[in-house]
């Protein structure tokens, strides 16, 4: 194994302590009955109920634009930087590029994540890029790329969806020209059960269903509500056509609910920055008056 000399190294191999847990391992059936009991999920939601979403813009002052999203225990932060020239590119490209990086913080999941991007994170970066590209006016910045970084601080399911919603808001906050905002929602499917915005436990259930089931898996669905366009559809697992059509129906409605939240958040942040600007100008004028008093203006002779 190559040693990463740029970081402080731990033991050659270490395992999460939960593997040795003295707690009894639950079999699949009990997990299923626990996750969905009497029409309610563990956290008391109905199957088609989204978690409460908290959005905030301009959290990273050093970035051009940024946003933070919280869906109960799923927390993602996103920042967007000024367009810069595409490195190592000689020919002209008509459309600007989006560079997306999706990363889990080492402590964000149940098991520790490595520092380097793994295959899953690379795939998610790609999905993130594909979800955002249709919403950005890329012809406005030819030959340039906009960097978008998403960092998951805590993952309790649907982290990718949260990152897409968050990143679109961060792009808007960075005043990158856009056609529309993108809202994204995940749906977990398990046999006859569907979970909108699944938690980590529900995601695991949906992804590890026995093969005999016809429908199981997760769908990450990104949607531009005002344009009524699906920008990205990423599915894992297998589902029949009826299931997919009904899922898209459910997901479109869910995205329509999330979309106004992003909009409101954006409106709030614009209002705030306008107010701030006014205040700053007032302060500046005051300071200028003081300075003018201090240094006598040079008199022309």
């Amino acid at each position, binding site marked *: 194994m190559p*040693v990463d*000399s*740029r*970081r*402080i190294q731990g033991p050659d191999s270490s395992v999460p302590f939960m593997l040795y847990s003295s707690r009894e391992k639950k079999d699949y059936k009990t997990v299923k009955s626990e996750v969905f009991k009497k029409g309610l999920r563990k956290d008391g939601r109905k199957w088609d109920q989204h978690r409460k979403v908290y959005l905030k813009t301009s959290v990273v002052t050093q970035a051009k634009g940024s946003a933070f999203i919280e869906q109960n225990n799923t927390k993602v932060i996103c920042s967007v930087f000024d367009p810069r020239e595409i490195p190592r590119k000689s020919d002209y490209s008509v459309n600007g590029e989006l560079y997306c990086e999706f990363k889990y913080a080492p402590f964000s999941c149940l098991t520790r994540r490595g520092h380097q991007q793994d295959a899953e994170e690379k795939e998610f970066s790609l999905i993130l890029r594909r979800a955002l590209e249709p919403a950005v006016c890329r012809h406005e910045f030819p030959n340039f790329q906009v960097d978008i970084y998403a960092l998951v601080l805590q993952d309790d399911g649907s982290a990718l969806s949260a990152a897409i919603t968050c990143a679109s808001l961060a792009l808007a906050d960075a005043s990158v020209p856009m056609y529309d905002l993108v809202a994204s929602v995940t749906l977990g499917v398990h046999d006859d059960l569907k979970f909108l915005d699944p938690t980590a436990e529900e995601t695991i259930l949906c992804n590890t269903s026995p093969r005999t089931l016809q429908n199981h898996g997760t769908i990450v669905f990104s949607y531009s509500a005002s344009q009524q366009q699906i920008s990205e559809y990423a599915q894992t697992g297998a589902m029949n056509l009826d299931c997919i059509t009904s899922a898209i129906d459910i997901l479109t409605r869910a995205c329509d609910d999330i979309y106004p939240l992003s909009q409101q958040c954006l409106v709030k942040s614009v209002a705030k920055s306008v107010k701030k600007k006014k205040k700053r100008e007032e302060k500046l004028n005051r300071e200028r008056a003081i300075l003018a008093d201090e240094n006598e203006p040079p008199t022309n002779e």
Partner: protein
Amino acid sequence: MEDSAIFNVQEQWLRPLRCELNVLSRPDGSAMITQGSYFILCCYVNTFLYSYRVHIFFFKGNTAVVAAVYGPVDVKPQRILVDKASIETVYKPKSGLPNVADRMRETIIKNTCETALLSAIHPRTAVCIVLQEMQDSGGLLSCCINAACMALMDSGIAMKFLVAAVSCMISEDDIILDPSDKDLMGSKASLTFVFDSAKKNLVASHTSGVFSQEQYHESLLKCRQASCEIFEFYRSLVKKYIICI
């Protein structure tokens, strides 16, 4: 022995210091500093045409560093600085890849040299300082900084002042200057200071271990005194080399 200088500190403050300039032919300036005890074996090697005289150095429990300086040279486009030369430092450990501790050493050396150099007179260029650790038996950082300073001086690049690094350790009751690795075993804290030759002010400081503010101040004063000896050594070194040139 004619092209090197040995400096014996009178009051035995520092371990014997030995420096050789121009040890490497390709760089613009180079220096090898060894600090500690050593002995030299002189022998003759006879081939059928020539007879060589070879010095073999036996370094016993000392710290040795070779430094090389290239510059001002061309700089990579992304590192270009419009108002001054960019300083690049490469620190090579004895074996293996540099780790994070070496990276920090590199940063300290780089920033120290940056302060000492008049980098503003060579804008849009780079000055590259390469350090190779040969052996470490205490006081590696100070040895590196001294070697880098000597190599810079040897390269003839314009400098604001010279710098001298001195390390010391705080044991139970006492402050010991320039400890060897054996001394360091019984230390509470070890400190390295770098001083400039102009005002003898503190340029860089790196410490490990726990100590009080008074102890820090005391060590600082003691090391400053010792740094004068190193500057004196630099002077005697230059005097010797002037004769060689």
